[in-house]
């Protein structure tokens, strides 16, 4: 019978049906970080349980890491306690951990694929909702809470109900200046922030097929913003080429055998889906959120529509009928697990080159990992950003969320390449977040206000 990747992977990892009716699902890769695990390790100790599969568990420190002064001990005493708690727990359990003084450290969803830990056909869990990112390689990956982290530590399993699968076909070429970020913002806008509840999203079609792995990661990363706990792209030659030679990927003959299995695990041509949606990529333009959830976005040429009573209008300072272009910004942030990879920085640097950041704008580039940072510096991108007046920071989650020193202040408006525009998300209860592609953030940093990046691309030789 023709099956989806989701069902094949689910069935390969199903241990048994639990008395509750849920499935006991084996987790092939457990990624952990400092925020959602200390309580889980405590619960484990209280019960006298050990970590069942330390060799299937990998840890990093990302959320709380300061991006300017990364030396230990961290200045924030609680942040330091979280870091040392994770170090202790990992040492005791024999779990590999990458701390900010190691070359591999970075945002958990950036380093998983980068190191080749993330592979097609795996089940992956992490105490972080953006775990859906790893689906870009053809894995079933989802975010879990701390009690579930405890379960995975203790048993390498979760008690879950299967998801339905919605196939999202994106077809047509993206216009220059339109990126994966614009595609996923458009999908979320169309299907709604609740539209994916109960579903895994399978992204496909010619547009997705033509995307790089990093672009697919941007798409899968924001599945959860559309309510879908997991999102994935079937593994293909692009996936295999990306994985070849990465430190934790299979090596030599094993790689070829792996490719054979990875091909098999992809959805069958005639697989049936619980729902299907088609998106026309040629109609997508640079897209910016204007509201307080990621579904509230508009294309740069559109006017904002909505119920004037919606609290998003008052909070963000917009009115129905307004445009996002021309909105003055105070802060520009390029980074995060959504858009903190090399290709994101390259696209932003193309826009920035030869320009200066507007005098009233504080602009930050925060590579998603030490690896991204090294690769960008090898290409001289840091000079492009620094020469233009951007700050070039160390790797971490930074301004995506208010858990480290990088935060908005007061009612600042931020052009951000991150994933959430929730009230207070960037650390100030009244701060305003406008989500957009890294190239759009770069353009806004230079103009000092939201502009259509396509107008700046015209000046750049292709």
């Amino acid at each position, binding site marked *: 019978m023709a099956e989806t990747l989701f069902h094949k992977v689910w069935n390969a990892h199903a241990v048994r049906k639990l008395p509750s009716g849920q499935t006991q699902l084996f987790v092939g890769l457990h990624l952990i970080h400092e925020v959602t695990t200390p309580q889980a390790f405590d619960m484990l100790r209280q019960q006298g349980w050990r970590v069942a599969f330390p060799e299937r568990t990998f840890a990093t420190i990302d959320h709380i890491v300061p991006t300017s002064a990364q030396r230990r001990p961290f200045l924030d005493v609680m942040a330091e306690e979280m870091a040392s708690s994770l170090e202790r727990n990992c040492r005791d359990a024999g779990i590999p951990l990458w701390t900010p003084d190691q070359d591999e450290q970075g945002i958990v969803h950036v380093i998983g694929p980068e190191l080749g830990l993330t592979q097609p056909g795996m089940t992956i869990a992490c105490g972080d909702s953006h775990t859906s990112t790893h689906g870009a390689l053809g894995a079933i990956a989802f975010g*879990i809470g701390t009690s579930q982290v405890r379960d995975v530590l203790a048993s390498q399993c979760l008690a879950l109900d299967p998801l339905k699968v919605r196939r999202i076909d994106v077809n047509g070429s993206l216009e220059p200046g339109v990126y994966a970020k614009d595609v996923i913002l458009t999908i979320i806008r169309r299907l709604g922030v609740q539209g994916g509840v109960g579903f895994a999203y399978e992204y496909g079609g010619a547009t997705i097929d033509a995307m790089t792995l990093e672009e697919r990661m941007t798409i899968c990363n924001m599945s959860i913003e559309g309510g879908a706990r997991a999102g994935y792209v079937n593994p293909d030659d692009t996936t295999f080429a990306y994985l070849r030679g990465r430190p934790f990927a299979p090596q030599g003959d094993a790689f070829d055998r792996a490719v054979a299995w990875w091909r098999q695990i992809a959805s069958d041509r005639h697989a049936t889906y619980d729902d299907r949606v088609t998106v026309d990529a040629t109609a997508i333009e640079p897209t910016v959120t204007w509201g307080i959830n990621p579904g509230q976005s508009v294309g740069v040429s559109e006017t904002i529509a909505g119920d004037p009573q919606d609290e998003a209008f008052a909070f963000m300072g917009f009115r129905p009928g307004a445009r996002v272009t021309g909105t003055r910004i105070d802060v520009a942030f390029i980074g995060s697990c959504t858009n903190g990879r090399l290709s994101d920085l390259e696209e932003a640097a193309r826009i920035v080159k030869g320009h200066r950041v507007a005098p009233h704008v504080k602009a930050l580039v925060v590579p998603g990992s030490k690896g991204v940072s090294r690769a960008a510096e090898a290409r001289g991108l840091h000079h492009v950003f620094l020469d233009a007046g951007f700050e070039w920071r160390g790797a971490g989650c930074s301004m995506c969320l208010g858990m480290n020193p990088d935060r908005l202040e007061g009612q600042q408006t931020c052009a951000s390449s991150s994933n959430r525009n929730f009230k207070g998300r960037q650390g100030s209860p009244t701060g305003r977040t406008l989500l957009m592609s890294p190239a759009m953030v770069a353009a806004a940093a230079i103009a000092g206000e939201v502009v259509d990046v396509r107008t700046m691309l015209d000046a750049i030789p292709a």
Partner: protein
Amino acid sequence: MTNDQRPSAIRHVEGRGLPVRGHDIDTDRIMPARFLVAVSFEGLERHVFEDDRKADRSHPFNDPRYRGASILVVNANFGCGSSREHAPQGLARFGIRAIVGESFSEIFQGNAAMMGMPCFAADHDSIERLQTLVERTADVTIAADVQSGAITAGALRFTATLPPALRDAFVSGQWNPTAMLLDRFEEVRAVASRLPYIKGF
């Protein structure tokens, strides 16, 4: 509560209501990220909806009429966004025992279930009536039956649902699954040993 590995059956939840209106209330609003810089869940009850409460004095969590309430009444997609269990942990430590709403994010609902906090889903009109009733008569008792999904409050009566597996888990006292997951560990090892990427391809 969260650490009890022999949880007891949860068949019935009863208490006064606390209505929080609005769709898509995310976990950043329920528990702002700065309160996650900690190694335990202790004290989180003090920070539930902290920024919303400061911005709006009339926020229901500030309203003395709802003091001691244990059943939250919410609208659609409650708990969306971040997977942080700190959000339901904060609510539970504040005294919330169950949530009745139009719908919930999956991760939030799963986290709440692992703590023994059922999230009942019902249609918009029923929720709207319940919120209005509680706003008018804060001391009305809401009773929720886990097996049947029957919700009663004063003269108001409607049926809500829980995902069947979670409902059965609450009723049978198996809502905290760790012990179950460890029960037949040889089967876990057997599945692992069959996976190509664990065998080394």
